[in-house]
C-alpha cells in the first residue's frame, strides 16, 4: 500500500466516521455502504459489498442510543472493505477482514468516548463566552468538534490499515483451514448476532414474530 493510497483510504474513513454522529448522520457510515466504498477505492467493489453485508448483519445489533458506547462502524467498515479487497486473496480473507473491522470498530468506539470528553472540555472552557451569548464561541465549539471527529476517523483508519494489512497478509499466507469452513464460521457468527438483534429490536412488537415467520417462508420459497 503506497502512502498515497493510505491517505485516500484515511480520507474516506474520516468522512464516513464523521457520519456516525457528527455530520450528517445520513448512514453512509453503515457497513453495507462504507465497506463497499472502501472496497471500491481499493479496486474490488464486489469484495467490499460482501464484507459490507456481513458486517451489516453484525451491526444490526447496534442501536446508537444517546450516550451509550457502541462500535464505530464507519471507519471500521472502510478498513474491512480495504482489507478484503486489497490483500492477497485466500481462504481466510473474509474472516480476517471481518476480524480487522471488528477490532477497529471496538477501538473506534473508545475514540468516540474520548472525543466526547474533549468536546465537554471545550464546552467547559468556553462557558463564560457562551453564557455571554458570543456567536464565535458557540460556532467555534461546534466546528472544533466536527473537525476533531474528522481527524479522529482519518487517524483511526490510517493506523488500523497500517497495522492490520501486514498482519492480514501474513495470516492469509499461513491459513490452514478449508475455505468452506472459514466462510461458514464467519457467516454463522454474523447471522447469529443478526438473529439476536432482530429478536432484541422486535420482540416487544405485537405480531412481529408472525411477520418474521411469513418473511422466512417467502425466503424459503425464493431459495427453493
Amino acid at each position: 500500500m503506497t502512502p498515497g493510497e493510505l491517505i485516500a483510504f484515511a480520507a474516506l474513513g474520516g468522512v464516513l466516521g464523521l457520519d456516525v454522529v457528527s455530520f450528517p448522520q445520513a448512514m453512509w457510515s453503515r457497513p453495507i455502504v462504507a465497506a463497499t466504498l472502501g472496497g471500491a477505492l481499493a479496486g474490488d467493489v464486489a469484495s467490499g459489498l460482501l464484507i459490507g453485508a456481513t458486517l451489516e448483519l453484525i451491526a444490526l445489533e447496534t442501536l446508537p442510543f444517546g450516550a451509550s458506547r457502541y462500535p464505530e462502524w464507519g471507519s471500521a467498515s472502510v478498513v474491512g472493505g480495504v482489507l478484503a479487497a486489497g490483500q492477497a486473496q485466500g481462504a481466510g480473507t473474509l474472516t480476517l477482514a471481518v476480524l480487522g473491522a471488528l477490532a477497529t470498530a471496538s477501538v473506534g468506539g473508545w475514540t468516540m468516548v474520548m472525543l466526547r470528553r474533549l468536546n465537554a472540555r471545550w464546552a467547559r472552557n468556553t462557558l463564560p463566552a457562551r453564557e455571554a451569548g458570543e456567536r464565535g464561541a458557540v460556532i467555534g465549539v461546534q466546528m472544533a468538534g466536527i473537525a476533531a471527529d474528522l481527524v479522529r476517523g482519518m487517524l483511526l483508519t490510517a493506523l488500523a490499515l497500517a497495522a492490520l494489512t501486514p498482519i492480514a497478509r501474513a495470516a492469509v499466507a499461513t491459513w490452514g483451514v478449508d475455505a468452506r469452513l472459514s466462510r461458514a464460521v464467519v457467516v454463522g457468527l454474523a447471522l447469529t448476532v443478526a438473529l439476536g438483534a432482530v429478536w432484541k429490536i422486535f420482540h416487544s412488537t405485537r405480531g412481529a414474530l408472525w411477520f418474521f415467520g411469513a418473511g422466512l417462508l417467502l425466503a424459503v420459497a425464493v431459495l427453493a
Partner: protein
Amino acid sequence: MTDVRETLPPTGSVAPRALPLRTRIALFTRLLAIQGAWNYEILLGNGIGYCVEPALRLLPGGVGGRRYRQALARQSRYFNAHPYLAAIAVGALARVELDELPPNRIERFRTALCGPLGSVGDRLVWAGWLPFCSLLALVAFGMGVGATGVLLLFLGLYNAGHLALRAWGLRVGWRHGMNVATALGTPVLRYGPEHIARAAAFVAGIGLPLALYRIIGPGRALLGGVLVAVAIGGFVLARLHGRAEGWRIAFGVLAAFVLVSVAR
C-alpha cells in the same frame, strides 16, 4: 436585513408567516451538524444554539444585540433529544425566541421538550426505520443486486425518510411554537414505530436467509450445520439480552478461530 418582527405575531398561538428562505435553509443545513459537539455534560446543548442561531439574527438589534446574546446563551445550554427530532425543538425554540416570550417561559418550555423528543425518535428511527432500511438492503443483496443498486436503495430510502423527518420537524416546530406538543401526537410518531417494526420483522425474515445464502458461497456444503449453530446461538443471545453484546462475542470467537487457523 429583513425585520421579520413585522411578520410575526406577539405570541406562539397564531400561525406565523414564513421565515426568510435564507434563514430556513441555514436552519435546515445546520441541523445536519447538530451533534457536532455532542458531549457528556451538555449533550446536544451547544448544537441547539448553533442551529437556532441564524433565526436569532432576526431579533431586534441583530447579531451581537442584547436580545440575540441572551437568546443564544439560553439556547446553548444542556439539551437532549434524538438528533432528527431535535428539528422540532429547533423550529419551536426559534419561534418562541422571535416571539420574544418571557425568558423563564422559554426555559421551562425548553426543559419540557427534552424527554419526548428523545424516546420517540429512538423508537421511530434507531429501532425502526434504520433496521428496516438495513434489512431491505440485505434483501436486495441476497437477491443478487449489485453494489450500486444496493447502495442506492439503502441510502435513497433511508435518507428520504431521514430528510423528510427533519424538514417536517422544523416546519411543525416553527408553526406551532409553544404548542408543538400537538405535533407529537401525529399518527406517524404514535403508531409509526409499531408498523415499521412489523414491516422490518417481515423483511428480516426474508433478508437474513437470502443474505446468508449469498455470503456463505463455497461454505454452502456446511449449510445445515450453520443453520443449527445459528439457531442455538440466536437463542442464547436472546436469553442473554442486555447482559452481553453479540458483536463482542463474535469478535472473541472469530479471534480464537483465526488463531487456530493460522497455527494449524
